[in-house]
């Protein structure tokens, strides 16, 4: 066990974690942040995406002890009226919504990094976020709305 101090959604929390625990399990099971969800376990589906200092990462692959003082952001930090969530809601861009937090965090990080991103660029960024319900056409509408004029 190692004691870590995590900065999550602008709060600092201390917890003891095994050295081999991944961030996904720490956030879900120790910090009760259930928006962070398991799906593939190998970093290919994007479901468990969180932001680390503003960059999207797969929390199923990252050991918690390696997070250090980087800021962790999960979907719980969103307000429904924030631009990215509002665009997804407005376009009905989800069905079961299990993959939705990962989609939102990936899109939000990309747009924060490059506000002038085109729809095609944002679509490519989201290619690593899988949705089995097949909501991609509606996500594409949200992407277009978020990149209007670029």
């Amino acid at each position: 066990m190692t004691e870590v101090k995590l900065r999550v959604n602008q709060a600092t929390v201390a917890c003891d974690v095994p050295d081999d625990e991944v961030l996904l399990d720490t956030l879900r099971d120790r910090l009760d942040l259930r928006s962070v969800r398991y799906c593939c376990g190998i970093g290919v589906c994007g479901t468990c995406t969180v932001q680390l200092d503003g960059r999207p990462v797969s929390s199923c692959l990252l050991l918690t002890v390696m997070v250090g003082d980087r800021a962790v952001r999960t979907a719980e930090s969103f307000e429904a009226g924030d631009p990215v969530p509002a665009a997804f809601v407005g376009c009905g861009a989800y069905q079961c919504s299990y993959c939705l937090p990962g989609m939102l965090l990936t899109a939000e990080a990309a747009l924060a990094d490059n506000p002038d991103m085109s729809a095609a660029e944002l679509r490519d960024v989201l290619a690593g976020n899988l949705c089995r319900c097949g909501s991609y056409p509606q996500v594409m509408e949200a992407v277009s709305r978020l990149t209007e004029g670029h």
Partner: protein
Amino acid sequence: MTEAAITGPAAAGGPAAVPPGAPPEVRLTTRDSAARVTGRFRFAVDRYVTGTAHAVAVRSAVPHGELAGIRTSDAEQVPGVLGVLTGQSLARDPSLHLYHGESRADQPVLAIDRVRYVGEPVAVVVAETRVAAEEAASRVVTDVTSWPAVTDAGEAGLPGAPQLHEQWPGNECGRWTLRHGDAERALAAAAYRHTGVYRSPSASHAAMEPHCATAAWLPDGSVEVWSATQSVYPVRNRLAGVLGLPREKVRVRADNLGGAFGGKLDLRLEALVALAARMTGRPVRMELRRDEVFVTAAKHAATVTVTTGVDRGGLIVARIIDIVWNAGAYAITTPRGSRTGLIRSPGPYRIPHVLGHSVARYTNTVPTGPFRGAMSGQICWAHESAMDEVAAGIGLDPVEFRRRNILRAGDVYATGEAMADMHYDELLAAAAAAVGAGARDGARPAGDGPRPPRRRGRGVALVMKTTRTPSRSEAIVTLGADGQVTVRASAGEMGQGAAASLAELAGRRLGIEAGRVAVSVADTATTPFDTTSSSSRTTFAIGTSVERACKDLLARLAGIADRYPELPPGEGPPEPAAGADACLAWKRLLAAAGIDSVSGHGGYASPPGAGKLDPDTLQGAASDHWHQGAVGVEVEVDTETGKVEVLRAHGASYGGRVVDPVRVRKQTTGGMVFGLGQALMEDLCYDAGQPAATTLSDYQIPSFLDVPPVIGATILASPDPEAEPHGVGENTVPPMAPAVANAIFDATGARVRDLPITPERVLRALRAGRAS
């Protein structure tokens, strides 16, 4: 008939306020969107019961063999382990019925004396933490004597093939015959005959959320299970049978699901956690890892042979169909499901003479279950590929050939019944026109054509599905003293928006906003019976029940008002559609009458005799109504690499009385995206009995980059306010693969008959085409 072509963005539906004081166990559909985007919407995997221990299954690494023994002593030494459950220890308890199944009790909860597929649970380790359970599970040693295995359903029927179940010789898992007219004689007299063999592999439902379940025993000897299941009642009934308990001693509760697609039906984990909880005296939870999901439920692989006879006018005179299904290691729904597939196998055509044979066989592969469009993906791949092959053979455009043969109202189907409410003219026209297929459907899309070696082509495909028949649903709609309206029904919410649809239907009947209607989660202790949340029947069967329950509720409220004539005018129950004040007026009425709550009851049941088919010929009324869909695609094929790109896809679906066109559109486009996976990439294949793809890296599902750049939907809606709502969640899944194959043929003349349509198969078909 109105045709609403919905191509623009979905209507804006911003998050609405959560009404104060909402009960914790009900979902208010209006609050979903805010909860979903902030990650606070709760799924089955989020269900934790205080004091829960964690279970991990030990699984067979051998496809077939004798389970001689299991050594658990090393596992039991791992700190935190509470116990290890084995089939042999359970078999000593005479109160249990370890073998279970919908129609054949052939599947043990845990392997007892033999294993039949890689991934079969042979033991369950329970520990304080999941990590400890996983560590201990790796230390369970199984002694298995390996036997020859069979993974192909054709080989499983050969003499000398390994036998999976002694009581079912020949590995037979259901055999059916569909006989209408005299197909052999009509075929012999046909002007043109064509035979094709079409194969589709097993596939994984691959819902994003893994299966999970939690069980807890209560002091009165009853058991409660929370499960990621689509349908609570079948689970409860089967679980009660396994545990030897009366049904009222078993409570099964569902939660919201992160997708299901047929993979979360029937008993999967529930008996394991119930027995593990009984052993340890603790609540026990099991949540699968992705590799376990791949070996927990799968699509039936199938080989379908279709022979079609056509007369000189391009009319189909006969069809002979032969289907071999791969049931996997245990029957589960296969005996019934294979009949369903056979009934649908002729396709939506007017064919006077049909003969169909279907046999399902056990193999040493993952147990099967319905897969979005249950048992239709396999047969639609066959009948729609065959339609285009026949059209090419007789020199007719494939759209025109279909137009001459599609079922219209009054035509007789292969089950001998006269069809009503048929919409294939409109569906076919919409799908074909959107992609420029068909000689009479307008010009092909203009613009720059592809440069060699790329070629473009267009294809269409149709599907017709039965819905589960006979079936039954019930609903209760309650008005509380606080004015809250709650729908109680056993609908599974798995992303299709069942709760939102039921709230909408109730709101319309009661004259209040849907946002004021709460919809409960399915729970056998509090929500009434429902046959199944599958088969695209929820909006129709439960929706109808909810509407009838609303009517009953309004009648009861009117009765109460009649007994309290002293109520001032305007404070009795309002007329339907009286608006938002309705709840307030009802609240006053109940307060005046001193009544805490009023409930209306409603139900749906298939008409008498529906689904009762002649066992020798399958003639009769096969379905309460028929799901109808069409897909058109345009593809571009690289003839040097074999790569196929779908440029356009258009789905057309009959929705009956459409509850929410936005959600219908999402089901229609989402179904095509889902179907694109089976068309181009998905193959749950086996290598020496081992499943070869058990990660989402090896088993690819469609991503953003696979989605056709142009994708659209046409929703056919009935303008009749009393028309039946139709489920639409499956209508565009099965036609996707044959539409793509037909478009590839249109582009290149190459015919691929095995799914998925990989570049290798396209290149091989191109070479075969050149050789001939």
